């Protein structure tokens, strides 16, 4: 039986993926939203003057970066409920995993960006009487944020793609939806092509959006 590529199946599959797509978007947006706050906190903690605070942030970042997300997902969804006796809904687990995982990488992005700002900026802020926190918030952070945009865009794309791993904990996202379709029609070639195209459309959208943000922020400044 010779393989025959059926482009029509690709086109038919795409609408069937929309349910999964919705979940993928929700988990990505939710995960990155919390991940950004987590990462900002951990990134700032990493440059704290308090050694214990630095150690805390460092342990978080290292343990997440040093283990596969697949292991983290299985651990949180199958392992943790055994220990605490509460089942976590797959979508909640998905958002937590993306948040915790992206947070570790975002922390390094934040740390790098904040440290790249000339120390004279903090000094000038302190010299007009701002507290360390105020100078960070009003002076250093807005400048650092601009430098974070390109690497953040990169991380957003990575996290979006990483949501496909959540199929192993039964989240009916895009990838799993595709898999379920192939289980019925056995057209793995066309279906996964469709799945890939949908991911590509989303990642390209993110890249475009980040470019727009970057451009907008650079209008006023160097």
């Amino acid at each position: 039986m010779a393989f025959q590529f059926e482009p029509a199946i690709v086109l038919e599959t795409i609408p069937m993926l929309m349910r999964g797509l919705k979940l993928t978007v929700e988990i990505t947006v939710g995960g990155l939203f919390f991940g950004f706050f987590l990462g900002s906190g951990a990134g700032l903690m990493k440059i704290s003057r308090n050694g214990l605070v630095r150690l805390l942030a460092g342990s978080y970042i290292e343990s997440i970066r040093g283990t596969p997300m697949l292991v983290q997902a299985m651990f949180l969804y199958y392992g943790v409920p055994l220990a605490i006796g509460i089942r976590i809904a797959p979508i909640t687990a998905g958002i937590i995993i993306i948040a915790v995982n992206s947070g570790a990488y975002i922390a390094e992005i934040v740390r790098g960006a904040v440290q790249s700002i000339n120390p004279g900026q903090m000094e000038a802020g302190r010299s007009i009487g701002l507290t360390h926190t105020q100078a960070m918030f009003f002076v250093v952070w807005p400048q650092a944020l601009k430098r974070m945009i390109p690497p953040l865009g990169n991380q957003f794309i990575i996290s979006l793609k990483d949501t496909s791993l959540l199929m192993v904990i039964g989240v009916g996202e895009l990838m799993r939806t595709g898999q379920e379709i192939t289980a019925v029609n056995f057209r793995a070639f066309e279906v996964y092509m469709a799945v890939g195209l949908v991911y590509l459309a989303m990642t390209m959208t993110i890249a475009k959006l980040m470019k727009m943000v970057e451009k907008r922020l650079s209008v006023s400044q160097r």
Partner: protein
Amino acid sequence: MIHIRSLHKRFGDLEVLKGVDLHVKAGEVVCIIGPSGSGKSTVLRCINRLEEPSSGSIIVDGHDIMARQTNINMIRTEAGMVFQQFNLFPHMKVLANVTLGPIKVRKMAKDEAVALGLSLLQKVGLANKANNYPQQLSGGQKQRVAIARALALQPKVILFDEPTSALDPELVGEVLAVMRQLAQEGMTMVVVTHEMGFARDVADRVIFIDDGKIQEEGPPRELFNNPKNSRLRNFLRAVTAA
């Protein structure tokens, strides 16, 4: 206004200040000169505790800056600072650079701060640049904005850390002119500078620092015309030869 006693500062093994005593009266203009690496900027940065003194005492406007109960942020509003590299906030317009302190630190109402900011920009001759971003300004203009930013807190003293050293020669004059005007208005100023002409004309007192200590101090006429210390003589010979 400022009383520094036996100030020492070490960076690791390197002792930068080896016991500095300096007293600045209200309304006085004190210029600190000396070779690079002599510790003169460090003295200035200790006064508002951007640099932590290793030992000694510093009293600013009656407040011991090392004391636990002293609010250092409050001291910093009384002792404004102007930096060699300007350190304007590049993401804010010129006016916002000037009003940030009054609004966030002094809790001034926004329109009041704007009025104050505009009047200070007027004073340094840059009212027309209020809505520009710092990178659209020349070095001299940036430094004048930085002076307006320091003035916005209505400080009792302004610390100038080599304010003209990063400027192109033709832009030095406009900054010195603003500083001269401040001096005439009675502002207390401590100026670390390489501008001997400014020190000679404007300073009430000149301090020569080398090797972490005050080697000689006195009225500019005396210090420049009749230097007693051999290091100072060598230094003056070197800077005037240039």
